[in-house]
């Protein structure tokens, strides 16, 4: 693997850190989903960078498209859940969901 790959992976790790930081520290449910989106970007970057460096860009592209489709499906479902949460709790604060604890 050449040095370009390490640069790409380094930036992908930074994106992963940003997404995980959002998931661990933010309270707004929409912010948590934005964190999930950022982690998704990190994954697509790793896939494409590896394909780019190893001259397998076509396969990497098709994998990236698969990841994007899954991501859209996930976000659509999660946002529908967020709307229902906002209707029930009148808030988007994730701490209020602790009421669901049995």
């Amino acid at each position: 693997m050449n040095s370009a790959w390490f640069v790409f992976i380094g930036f992908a790790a930074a994106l992963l850190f940003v997404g995980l930081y959002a998931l661990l520290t933010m309270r707004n449910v929409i912010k948590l989903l934005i964190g999930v989106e950022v982690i998704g970007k990190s994954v697509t970057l790793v896939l494409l960078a590896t394909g780019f460096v190893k001259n397998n860009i076509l396969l990497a592209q098709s994998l990236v498209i698969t990841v994007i489709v899954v991501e859209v499906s996930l976000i659509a479902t999660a946002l529908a859940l967020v709307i229902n949460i906002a209707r029930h709790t009148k808030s988007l604060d994730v701490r209020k969901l602790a009421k669901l604890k049995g």
Partner: protein
Amino acid sequence: MWGQILLLIAVVVFSAFAVLAKDLIKSAISLAVASLFLGLLFFQMRAPYAGVFEISVVAGLITVLFMLVIALTKTGGDVRESKLATLGFPLFFVVFAVIDLIVMKGLLAKLPALAGPAESGTFGDVLWKQRTFDLVGQLGVILAGVFAVLALFRKRDNKDE
């Protein structure tokens, strides 16, 4: 390479702003800009199909979905994020970057290199002939998402009340 590094820096900066911004609309727009830069990077890496998908679907469709939900809920601004989380981000990020620089190269060098034959043909050949089964899976995922959204917005029957 420097152009790609600039694009990567822009992606990380806008993603961080999307996470840290107080206003949700600004967060969603910042996320879309980050996706736009990532799409441009994909074009630079000779991956036009992935770039088109990234820009049209992630920067376009998902941003519209976020905007729609922010407009529908409106209560998002009431949630107060922890100040410590916002102010502590640069410190944590620098610590992470230093650890990453020290550890990552050694860890990645231990990964076995996967041998693969050189590619031939077009993107269409790879997508439709090599990965046919995955496309069926993708259809399944899309259908699952559609049915999940339908189930979540199902109208309550009068009999249930």
